Every structure is written in structure tokens, then in C-alpha cells.
């Protein structure tokens, strides 16, 4: 079937659905666009491959989004790769320059590169192909983000004459850790068996602790850390606590605090994501790139200057109409007196401030400039006026921002504000891991790739969590989860603990959970089972929900602290992925009614389109 008829067909099927833009999930849209860019698909290419009503929507948004990015003189992360490839593709002389420059190329973790990365590297490496890539197909864990394991499997075809080297000795882990990890990964059908042996001592048998619930799990982890740190030569920095999803960190973090164990969370709120820091960065972005209207909108009325959202909207329109930056549009409006007197005054003051600051930017060192912005903008004054502990904390963070600019200045060859902003935009979660600080590290297994720790806890070994609910229906996705498990286990050098909870508090309700299938894949003599709830047999069946009677019983037992659990989930949005007990995973394509009458239309790959009463359907939203 051609895409054309396909599309017509879909329109017939979905013709009755009204798309209410307000209900479309922006995150879902962005992840589709992101996937397209990783595949080097332009909006035009994308239009050709549309299948399904949601993709049609994305196909409308994608070109619009690109136009807006361009108008803002901005790129998103995926554009960075897309555009770099584009530049090399369209400019043979530029490509030639990089080919001449990079005579020897290596790529680590090659199993996780995506199409655009592959394209970039192979273009530069060509024709000499002095390209050395290293990787492990068993550790490919970013398929969900567009990484394509086939890149490493195809290497010998893509680069004729390639020489392949195999390394077989593991230096990191004890024999019993390697045995257990191998036992798990062997269950993946899509893989070639590789030899891997450790010459280290057999070491301690990995321990599995079956906890009653997530709190008991966290207690066990922290108590064990305390015990093990009593042994000579061990300190906090030797310990990592790993989990499948960031949501698991909260209970573990609370336990660290209770036990006074210093810790760092990778992937929590980044310093640069804090409100006051982002506000300041917005000022800098506008100075560096006057077209950046997203940043301008963020800072124009912070602190409050009497430039309301109505005014901003009009400025935006004027800027578009006259092809000006928003700042220039503000300048013109304040001169023309396009607005009521008070607003005109406010705009004039704002424009003056910006002009003054832009002038300073050329003259001052970045760190001094940053201080000047803090003061001249009135931002600090406003915070200082509000003498709350919250404001004091924000002021501290802003001082820290000045320090970070000063640090940058000390290391950069020719420090500029733009250079600092570039550096900030490249900072990723995992860069927070600091080997020098003596603390326990909490992070997802994805973030732990490539790292190693003497003592590792892999927590949340439960069906529905690990393997994740998201992946349970599709065999290739379960295989990716299993690779992730292999990555998790092989982070451990000396001592490995696995933990799982029999029940877990999720969005205010208790869910009963079966132990992860990955546990049952480790032969009994290679792992030691302990724990309060030990005895529950590992089943392949997966997560079973609380039966009403059982739940009641459990509610009576439940710890009062659980009442402060996260609020109930937001209702569904178009584009959300949801899971139905019988139909499996599907995408939300329509919403009707509200409250108890809310009807959700979901398209299930194997069952077609269904309209379900939300109240009855028990759809689980999948992040």
C-alpha cells in the first residue's frame, strides 16, 4: 500500500476524531520530531512517511517548529547533529578540511550511536577510514532514544577491510559478579555469545534482598552501606545505588538523609535548571543572541517591570511584521508610543537597561559582566528585599553562578560570555558525578554506563519496573532491558547487591510486584536470596495489581507517612502512550467528556482503535 492510500484510509478511520490542540502532549510531539531528526529526516521527508493521525499532527508541527527555531536563531540538541551533518554534506570544502584535520578517529560506546552520529563520523573518516570504534552490543541501551545497534553489527560491512579485535578478560569485577551478569545476558536471543572471564578472586556471592516495600528496600540499602563502610579501606565514594527510573530516587534519597549518608543524585534538578539560574541565563542568552525570543519572554518582566503578557504578545507580532528582534520592536514601540503611557515608559526603561548592559558586555570580563547584570537588572535587589530563607538560597545559587563563570574564565583560552553559554548547554546529568567528593552516588543504570564502583546496589528488581512496564510486551524491548540489567550488574567491582520490593507506593496507591524475571535467570547457586519478603517465587507472569480485599488489608497497615505521596496523575493528553490490561500499549488519539464520563480513544497496534471509559479502563500512563 502506498503512503497516499494509507493516509486516506487512516483519515477514514479517524475522520470522526476532532483534534483539540490544547490536548496534544507537547512532549510526545517533541519526541517524534527528535526521532525524525536523529534519522536525518527533514520536515519534507517526514511528510512522506506519515502513518497515523498523530504523525500527521507531528508533520504539521515539525516545519513550524523548525521555522520558529530559525527565527530565534536557535537550535535544539538534535539540530546540532543534524545541522553539522548538513554543513558537511553541502560544503565539500568544509568536509575536506575536517578530513584533513582528523586523521585518527576513535569512538567509544559505539553500540549506542544513532543514524546522524554515524553519518557524521563516517563522513569525516572517509576515505582513509582511520577509524577505531569500541563497543559491546550487549550494552546497547539507548534504542528508545534512536540509537541503532545495527551500526556496530554492520561495521565490518560499512568499513571494508576492518580489523576486528576481541578482548576477553574482564579486569573490573570478581568472578561471581561476572558469572551472574553473564547468566542474565545469555537469555537474549538476538546476540552472539562472547567469551568473558575474570581472573580475579571468586569473591562474594551477589545477594538479593526481597524487601516488603520501597521503604524497607531503602532501609536495607542504607543499613548495608553502613555495615560495609565499617570494613577497612572503604568509603562513601565506593558505593553506587542504581535504579531503573528517576522516580525511585526519592525514597532512597530520604533514607540517605535519615542515615546522614552524604550522597549525590545524578539527574536530579540540575544547577542550571534552577529558576533563578535559568532567569539569569535568559538575560545572557538575549545579550548573546538578540533574536532569542524564548529567552526574552522569560526575562522581560522578571523582576516585575510592568510589561505584561499582552504587551509581550503585541511586541512579538510587531517583531514578526517588521522583521525586527523583539528588543528592537520594544525600542520602536517605546519611541512611537504605541502603548499606553505607563507601558511605553516601562518599555523605554527596559530598552535602556538592555542597551547599557549590551555595552558593558563588550568591556567587562564575563564574570564581572554577570555581576553587573545581577545588579543592574534589579534581580538581586528584588530577592534581597524578600528576606525569606528561599530567597537567601536563591541568592546563594546566583553567587554560585558567578563562581561558575569565574571557573570557566580561569580555564578558557579566550573567555567570552558566549563561550560560557556554550559550555553550559553541553553539561549533562552525569557530569555531576564527582570522584573527588566523598559521597554515595545515586543514578539510573543508563547514566552509569562506562562507570565502575566497588560496591553496587541494583534496586527495584521487579517485574513492571525492571523490565519496565513500557517494554514488557515487546520482546526486543525486553532484550534492551536485559542489556540494561547487564550494564547495571557489571558496574560492580567487588560487591553486588540486588534488591526488590514486594509492594511499591505509586501515585498514592500500593502496587504488588513480582520479582524481576532477570533474577530467575541467575542460577540459584550464583545468588543468595534473603529478605523480609523472601519466599515469593519469581514468576514470569509479571506485575499483579492489588486486589481490592488485599488492598484494604494493606491500607490498614499502611504507614501514615504514605499519605503525602505524589498527587494523582494528570488526565491523559493526545499522544500519550498508555497501557491497557488486555489490549497492551497504545496511543491516546481522542478525549471526550470529563470526570467520570471521560472517554478516551486509544489506538492499539494489535487491537485497533477503541473508545474506553477512562474510569473503567484503568489505563496506565507510560512516561
Amino acid at each position: 500500500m502506498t503512503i497516499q492510500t494509507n493516509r486516506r484510509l487512516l483519515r477514514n478511520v479517524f475522520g470522526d476524531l476532532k483534534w483539540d490542540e490544547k490536548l496534544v502532549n507537547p512532549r510526545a510531539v517533541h519526541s517524534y520530531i527528535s526521532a525524525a531528526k536523529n534519522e536525518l529526516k527533514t520536515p519534507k521527508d517526514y511528510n512522506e512517511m506519515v502513518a497515523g493521525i498523530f504523525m500527521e499532527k507531528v508533520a504539521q508541527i515539525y516545519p513550524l517548529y523548525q521555522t520558529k527555531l530559525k527565527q530565534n536563531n536557535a537550535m535544539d540538541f538534535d539540530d546540532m547533529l543534524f545541522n553539522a551533518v548538513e554543513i558537511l554534506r553541502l560544503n565539500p570544502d568544509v568536509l575536506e578540511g575536517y578530513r584533513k584535520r582528523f586523521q585518527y578517529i576513535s569512538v567509544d560506546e559505539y553500540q549506542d550511536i544513532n543514524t546522524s552520529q554515524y553519518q557524521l563520523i563516517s563522513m569525516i573518516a572517509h576515505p582513509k577510514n582511520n577509524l577505531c570504534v569500541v563497543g559491546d552490543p550487549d550494552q546497547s541501551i539507548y534504542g528508545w532514544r534512536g540509537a541503532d545497534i545495527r551500526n556496530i553489527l554492520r561495521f565490518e560491512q560499512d568499513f571494508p577491510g576492518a580489523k576486528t579485535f576481541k578482548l576477553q578478560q574482564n579486569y573490573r569485577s570478581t568472578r561471581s559478579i561476572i558469572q551472574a551478569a553473564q547468566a542474565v545476558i545469555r537469555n537474549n536471543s538476538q546476540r552472539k555469545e562472547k567469551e568473558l572471564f575474570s581472573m580475579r578472586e571468586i569473591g562474594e556471592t551477589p545477594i538479593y534482598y526481597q524487601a516488603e516495600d520501597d521503604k524497607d528496600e531503602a532501609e536495607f540499602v542504607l543499613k548495608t552501606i553502613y555495615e560495609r563502610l565499617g570494613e577497612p579501606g572503604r568509603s562513601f565514594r565506593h558505593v553506587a545505588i542504581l535504579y531503573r527510573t528517576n522516580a525511585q530516587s526519592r525514597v532512597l534519597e530520604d533514607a540517605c538523609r535519615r542515615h546522614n549518608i552524604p550522597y549525590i543524585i545524578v539527574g536530579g534538578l540540575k544547577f542550571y535548571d534552577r529558576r533563578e539560574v535559568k532567569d539569569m541565563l535568559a538575560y545572557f542568552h538575549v545579550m548573546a543572541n538578540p533574536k532569542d525570543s524564548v529567552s526574552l519572554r522569560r526575562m522581560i518582566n522578571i523582576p516585575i517591570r510592568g510589561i505584561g503578557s499582552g504587551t509581550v504578545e503585541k511586541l512579538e507580532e510587531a517583531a514578526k511584521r517588521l522583521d525586527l528582534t523583539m528588543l528592537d520592536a520594544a525600542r520602536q514601540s517605546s519611541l512611537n508610543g504605541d502603548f499606553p503611557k505607563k507601558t511605553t515608559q516601562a518599555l523605554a526603561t527596559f530598552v535602556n537597561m538592555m542597551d547599557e548592559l549590551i555595552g558593558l558586555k563588550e568591556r567587562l570580563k564575563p564574570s564581572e559582566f554577570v555581576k553587573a547584570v545581577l545588579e543592574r537588572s534589579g534581580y538581586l535587589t528584588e530577592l534581597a528585599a524578600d528576606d525569606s530563607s528561599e530567597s537567601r538560597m536563591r541568592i546563594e545559587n546566583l553567587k554560585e553562578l558567578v563562581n561558575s563563570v569565574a571557573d570557566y574564565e580561569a580555564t578558557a583560552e579566550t573567555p567570552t560570555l558566549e563561550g560560557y553559554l556554550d559550555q553550559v548547554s553541553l553539561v549533562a546529568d552525569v557530569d555531576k558525578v564527582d570522584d573527588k567528593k566523598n559521597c554515595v552516588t545515586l543514578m539510573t543504570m543508563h547514566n552509569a554506563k562506562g562507570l565502575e564502583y566497588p560496591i553496587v546496589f541494583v534496586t527495584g528488581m521487579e517485574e513492571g519496573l525492571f523490565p519496565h512496564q513500557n517494554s514488557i510486551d515487546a520482546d526486543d524491548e525486553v532484550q534492551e532491558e536485559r542489556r540494561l540489567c547487564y550494564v547495571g550488574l557489571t558496574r560492580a567491582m567487588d560487591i553486588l547487591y540486588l534488591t526488590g520490593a514486594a509492594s511499591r507506593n505509586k501515585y498514592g496507591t500500593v502496587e504488588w510486584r513480582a520479582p524481576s524475571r532477570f533474577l530467575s535467570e541467575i542460577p540459584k547457586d550464583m545468588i543468595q536470596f534473603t529478605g523480609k519478603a523472601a519466599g515469593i517465587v519469581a514468576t514470569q507472569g509479571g506485575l499483579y495489581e492489588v486486589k481490592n480485599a488485599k488492598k484494604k488489608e494493606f491500607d490498614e497497615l499502611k504507614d501514615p507517612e504514605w499519605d503525602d505521596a505524589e498527587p494523582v496523575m494528570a488526565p491523559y493528553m493526545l499522544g500519550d502512550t498508555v497501557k491497557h490490561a488486555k489490549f497492551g500499549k497504545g496511543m491516546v488519539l481522542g478525549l471526550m467528556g470529563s470526570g467520570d464520563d471521560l472517554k478516551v480513544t486509544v489506538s492499539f497496534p494489535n487491537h485497533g482503535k477503541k473508545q474506553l471509559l477512562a474510569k473503567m479502563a484503568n489505563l496506565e500512563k507510560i512516561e
Partner: protein
Amino acid sequence: MKKTYHDLNEEQREAVFHNNGPALILAGAGSGKTRVVTYRIMRLIEEMKVDPFSILAVTFTNKAAQSMKERVAELSGRGKVKDIFIGTFHALCLQILKIHSPKLGYQTGFTIYDDSDQQALIKECLWGFEMG
């Protein structure tokens, strides 16, 4: 053979001593893959007299880049490391874009939107900006 290569095993050494042309190092966890990359860079500089400026090493994270730089510095000396390009794909792209993005119609000083900026813009596309 130089003394430094003694902390490599036979297989690792073979990979490190691979000279020209494509090479694939395929191995399980903890087998020294990253170590091989690091030693190879050192060898390129020390023995093959490759100009550090013409070496590109792509890592998965900035942190991995940082530790690789430190290792190479230990092995080959500070001075030589600073010219090697060791960094993530994004860092490499940024370097290309800094110079050449005007060819695609961007102006210098372009902004890289983070997650929340991206969301704001998508919302703007969907809803117009007053709702975002």
C-alpha cells in the same frame, strides 16, 4: 616494547598497536575497551608521532571525555593533550557549528535550547505563546 604497555594484556596490546584503517574492538563489560582507546591515543602521539591536533576521540559523556583527557595527560604529558579533540558528539558538532553555522543561515551567537526551551517552543507551535 615500552614499559607502559605492560599494563595491557596481549589482546589489548594488539588493538593498541593497530595502525591504519578501520578497527572494531568488540568486547564485554570491563574488558578494557576504554583503556585501549586511551592507550592508542598515547601511542599515536608517542610512537607514530601523530600531531595531537589531528586526533579525534568521541566519548559518550563529557565526564568520560574528562577522564580520558586526564589519563592521556598522565601517559603523554599535559602539553600534548590540549590539542587533541576529546569530547562528545555534541561538543564536536558545536565546534563545527560555531564556525560554519552561517552557511545554514544562522548568525553567530546562536542559542542552544534546553529541554524546557524546546517545550516552550513546541507549545507555542501548538497553542500560541500565551498558553505556554
